[in-house]
């Protein structure tokens, strides 16, 4: 463990009584509670912490905030490994393990730095020109090399052991940001009685006040306001909480980092919480980001934003250099210069303005700061880190002189954080006087206060915050407080002199070939912007995509405005004419885990389980996901494959009797005097003549004449029907029926109720099904006369009421039994038990599919949203005597075209050949275009002893007997198949009617 040579003996807001130990690239260091990883590394003089994205240049810590472009590191290990964390807002904790990234073998000796030698070719548009044009084949060759060489940290493939939560918040006034403006707004709104939530992304409130010397007037003010806020019951302050997005209707997205600042969350508490907040009004007080000035080699370690040096000194008691140069075009760096000088550094302040601010200059000189006005930094010197700067008069760039230094602070002015104000589409405006974008028209329900609104003086921030807080509370219906608020502050930091826009220093003969970085994170230089301009990518959206400017994890927060201004300069237009990019959430990187919250793994979506689920599980069912349903797919015996199993199940069912679970079918109870008329309108076939105690197969169309769904509906009583739908469309059919009754036909006296979950359903199919059920359900006459095909009966098994429908999906003599869901398991048990004498087999979804394909019944693969009733061989069902949904548009010319693909069966000419679902049907040898149709459902048919399939082929059964090719390109497979009738099994229906 080494001493920390750059740690100040006194001051700061760190807890010196709580030392912490951490590692960086395996080396052990010591810091204090209250440090960030960045401040602790700087205290030890660790200059290089990362390698740059493209050129692998050495990079140091550039900011003291979440806007950091350079100092991205990987944290943690195993499943907690987190790439691309910003060292600057990573709170230090005992045992923190951080590693540099994008370098090999190490950050100090990076072989990938050879990329820097290729800088002349790795310029803007390199990817497009090399890999999109005639040479695009090169991508295949070089992709892995480039992906390895250019990049950030790598995500882990291990499971994240931490948990994340979702929550909802409601308030009258949201205050985003707890700097002086935000705290003042919260106080004013809270005093008026409004429910206020204040969000601050840092671990403590205060914002820029924390960059003032500790225990000064800034701290006094903050303590006073915090005390008052603590006394207000309706104000909630959430620290470590970022407002990352503004959405419609006063909704905001928040991320609360509960336990990022410890090694692992205590107990089973969540690591982060993602909040959806709804408010009446939002006061945006998100502050401003300092921005850079571009000069040669401006990316050297040891170059930071001026305000970051102020933060290091006043928050963390770290002075990261002995000889400091500050380079500015505005007043704000003067305070930093004073603080650095008082902390013991030799400080020179270089101001591009010829006339420095008088009062600030006086204070600086008193502190021993040398001021050089009218000069700019042309270039930084030093290889591993900055060793000095070449400065020159702003109008004579070749007249340079050298200043030795080991720390350079840069201030190119301030960029208000207008993101939350722009997420809903409002555009910021360029203010020539402040040389920055300020909020323009506000989005509804928002106001801005403080630096994010262009107010850079504390007194103005506080005044704006108070006004905005009062106004927000008023808009939410809370009377204004009459009691005056003690909110003045004894700091006068109002700018004396206006900022002088100065985006980049000129080049001179000496610095011509050195890179001048605009976007540090993505290695975008002025040359790239010039190239984009020459090649016509002059609009900001094009510039951004061509150069990748502002597209890093920092979204160019410290660089975008300079890039805009530079492009404006090249074009000879005003900055406002170049525009700004669209601001989209999230404001800063958000962990996917937090957005997913608890909805991961088995909680990704609800599981729908049949009432007989436990039985299936206990009997070795293999499940298949069908929508949200977990359905038994097949019930393998020892060592049995899926194919062996479903063939056995289907064969046995056709031989004796089979039992399968049909509970997931959609079930809708239809009641009312107009129920028959209603069914007549929603189904293509007629329902008026269906007698009580009978069932009927029905087909529904959409309004455009395409088939929507099918199922059986039975008449339980005069005004009472029981409708079934396919499992997949159960929800959609229900919603559609409600729509029709509520909007189109409110005069019909009908009520529909979804009863899908209320009824368990099972099908008993096979030649011995009648014998089995007759022995089990004694109060029903199962004879062919007593319960004929499409008949309905009510019976009971002990106390279980059972609704019996004699319908058949398998083509066998078959019955569907329905009982209240709570009895489902017991009824199944009894049927299964009684089946022992009849060689009963339980079958799953796969065998069910086999039997329905053998029987030529259509299902989801055929009812695919493109097929008409005619296409599916169901056209004859459509009534011509009544109107129904889709009855008009099904007669469109296009839907009556005889060449439309229509349902057929196919089987391989060579019986041993296998078929593939999704194969394209083509005329023999003419494998072109979209072919003449496609294979929709396949199975091995135990009855036919070969593969069979349903298909949709142009011309349909007019092609019966023809031989065509089934082409499956993904396996380079062609099978000659014969077009046959789709009813492979028992075409006369003797079995199911028997």
């Amino acid at each position, binding site marked *: 463990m080494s001493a920390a040579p750059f740690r100040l003996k006194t001051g700061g807001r760190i807890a010196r009584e709580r030392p912490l130990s951490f590692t960086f690239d395996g080396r052990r260091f010591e810091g204090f509670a209250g440090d960030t990883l960045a401040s602790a590394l700087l205290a030890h003089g660790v200059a290089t912490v990362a390698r740059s994205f493209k050129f692998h240049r050495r990079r140091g810590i550039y900011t003291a905030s979440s806007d950091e472009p350079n100092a991205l590191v990987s944290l943690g290990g195993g499943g907690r490994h987190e790439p691309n964390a910003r060292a600057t807002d990573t709170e230090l904790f005992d045992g923190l393990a951080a590693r540099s990234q994008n370098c090999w073998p190490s950050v100090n000796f990076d072989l990938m730095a050879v990329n820097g030698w290729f800088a002349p070719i790795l310029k803007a548009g390199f990817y497009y020109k090399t890999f999109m044009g005639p040479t695009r084949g090169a991508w295949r060759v070089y992709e892995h090399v480039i992906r390895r060489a250019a990049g950030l940290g790598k995500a882990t493939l291990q499971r994240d052991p931490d948990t994340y939560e979702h929550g909802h918040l409601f308030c009258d006034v949201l205050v985003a940001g707890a700097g002086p403006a935000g705290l003042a707004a919260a106080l004013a709104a809270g005093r008026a009685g409004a429910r206020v939530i204040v969000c601050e992304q840092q671990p403590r409130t205060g914002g820029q006040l924390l960059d003032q010397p500790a225990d000064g007037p800034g701290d006094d003010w903050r303590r006073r306001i915090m005390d008052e806020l603590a006394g207000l019951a309706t104000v909630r302050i959430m620290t470590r909480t970022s407002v990352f997005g503004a*959405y*419609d*209707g*006063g*909704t905001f997205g928040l991320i609360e980092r509960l336990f990022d600042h410890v090694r692992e969350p205590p107990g089973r508490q969540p690591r982060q919480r993602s909040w*959806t907040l*709804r408010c009446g009004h939002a006061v945006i007080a998100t502050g401003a980001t300092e921005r850079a000035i571009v000069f040669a080699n401006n990316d050297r370690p040891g170059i930071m934003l001026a305000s970051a040096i102020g933060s290091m000194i006043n928050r963390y008691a770290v002075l990261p250099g002995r000889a400091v140069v500050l380079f500015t075009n505005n007043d704000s760096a003067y305070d930093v210069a004073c603080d650095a000088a008082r902390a013991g550094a030799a400080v020179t302040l270089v101001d591009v303005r010829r006339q420095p601010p008088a009062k600030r200059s006086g204070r600086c000189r008193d502190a021993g700061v040398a001021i050089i006005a009218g000069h700019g930094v042309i270039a930084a010197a030093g290889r591993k880190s900055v060793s000095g700067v070449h400065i020159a008069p702003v109008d004579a760039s070749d007249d340079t002189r050298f200043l030795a230094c080991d720390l350079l602070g840069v201030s190119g002015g301030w960029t208000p954080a207008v993101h939350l104000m722009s997420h*809903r*589409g409002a555009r910021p405006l360029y203010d020539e006087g402040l040389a920055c974008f300020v909020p323009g028209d506000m989005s*509804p329900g928002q106001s801005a206060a403080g630096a994010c609104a262009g107010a850079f003086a504390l007194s103005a921030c506080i005044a704006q915050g108070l006004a905005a807080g009062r106004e927000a509370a008023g808009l939410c219906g809370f009377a204004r407080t009459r009691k005056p608020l003690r909110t003045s502050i004894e700091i006068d930091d109002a700018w004396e002199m206006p900022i002088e826009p100065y985006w980049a220093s000129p080049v001179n003969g000496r610095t011509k070939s050195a890179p001048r970085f605009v976007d540090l994170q993505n290695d975008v230089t002025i040359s790239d912007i010039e190239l984009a301009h020459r090649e016509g990518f002059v609009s900001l959206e094009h510039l951004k995509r061509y150069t990748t400017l502002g597209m890093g994890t920092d979204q160019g927060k410290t660089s975008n405005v300079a890039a805009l201004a530079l492009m404006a300069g090249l074009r000879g237009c005003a900055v406002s004419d170049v525009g700004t990019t669209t601001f989209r959430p999230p404001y800063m990187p958000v962990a996917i885990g937090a957005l997913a919250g608890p909805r991961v793994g088995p909680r990704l979506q609800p599981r729908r389980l049949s009432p007989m689920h436990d039985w299936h599980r206990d009997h070795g069912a293999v499940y298949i996901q069908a929508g949200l349903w977990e359905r038994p797919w097949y019930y393998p015996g020892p060592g049995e494959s899926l194919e062996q199993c479903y063939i056995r199940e289907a064969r046995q069912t056709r031989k004796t009797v089979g039992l399968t679970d049909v509970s997931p079918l959609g079930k809708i109870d239809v009641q009312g005097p107009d129920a028959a008329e209603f069914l007549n*309108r929603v189904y293509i076939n007629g329902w008026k003549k269906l007698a009580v105690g009978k069932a009927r197969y029905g087909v529904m169309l959409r*309004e*455009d004449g395409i088939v929507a769904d099918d199922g059986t509906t039975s008449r339980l009583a005069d005004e009472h029907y029981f409708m079934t739908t396919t499992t997949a469309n159960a929800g959609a059919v229900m*919603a559609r029926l*409600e*729509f029709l009754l*509520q*909007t*189109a*036909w*409110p005069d019909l006296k009908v009520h529909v109720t979804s009863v899908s979950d209320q009824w368990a359903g099972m099908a008993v199919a096979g030649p011995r099904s009648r014998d089995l059920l007759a022995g089990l359900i004694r109060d029903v006459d199962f004879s062919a006369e007593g319960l004929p095909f499409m008949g309905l009966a009510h019976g009971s098994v002990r106390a279980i009421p059972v609704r019996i429908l004699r319908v058949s999906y398998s083509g066998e003599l078959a019955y569907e039994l329905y009982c209240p869901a709570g009895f489902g398991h017991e009824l199944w048990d009894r049927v299964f038990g009684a089946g022992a004498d009849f060689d009963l087999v339980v079958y799953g979804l796969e065998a069910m599919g086999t039997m329905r394909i053998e029987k030529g019944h259509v299902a989801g693969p055929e009812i695919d949203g493109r097929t008409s009733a005619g296409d599916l061989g169901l056209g004859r069902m459509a009534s011509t005597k009544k*109107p*129904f*949904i889709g009855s*008009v*548009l099904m*007669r*469109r010319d296009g839907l009556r075209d005889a060449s439309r693909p229509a349902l057929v069966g196919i089987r391989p000419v060579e019986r041993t050949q296998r078929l593939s679902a999704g194969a394209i049907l083509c005329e023999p040898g003419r494998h072109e275009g979209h072919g003449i149709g496609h294979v929709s459902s396949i199975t091995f048919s135990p009855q036919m002893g070969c593969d069979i399939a349903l298909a949709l082929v142009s011309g349909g059964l007019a092609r019966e007997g023809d031989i065509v090719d089934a082409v499956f390109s993904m396996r380079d497979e062609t099978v000659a198949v014969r077009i046959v009738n789709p009813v492979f099994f028992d075409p006369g229906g003797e079995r199911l009617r028997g």
Partner: protein
Amino acid sequence: MIRIDCPYCGARDHTEFSYGGDASVPRPDIACEDIKAWSDYVFLRDNPRGAHSEFWHHVNGCREWLIVKRDTATHEVAAVLPARGNMP
């Protein structure tokens, strides 16, 4: 997040609702046999930027179909009516 003030349930997040399309075009009577009338109803839709009248189904609430007057550019909701009795 759009907040929809269901006349039956109160203000709820739009995640409780499902979108049901344009509510500005009158639906032909079930007995209407005019292909053009049905084609216009099914296929011809404006795509306005600004005020729009549309169906939303309170599918995870009261299951009533509603007519929501929404600005497609700002997502501002001007009115929410039961579809019953307010059809175009």
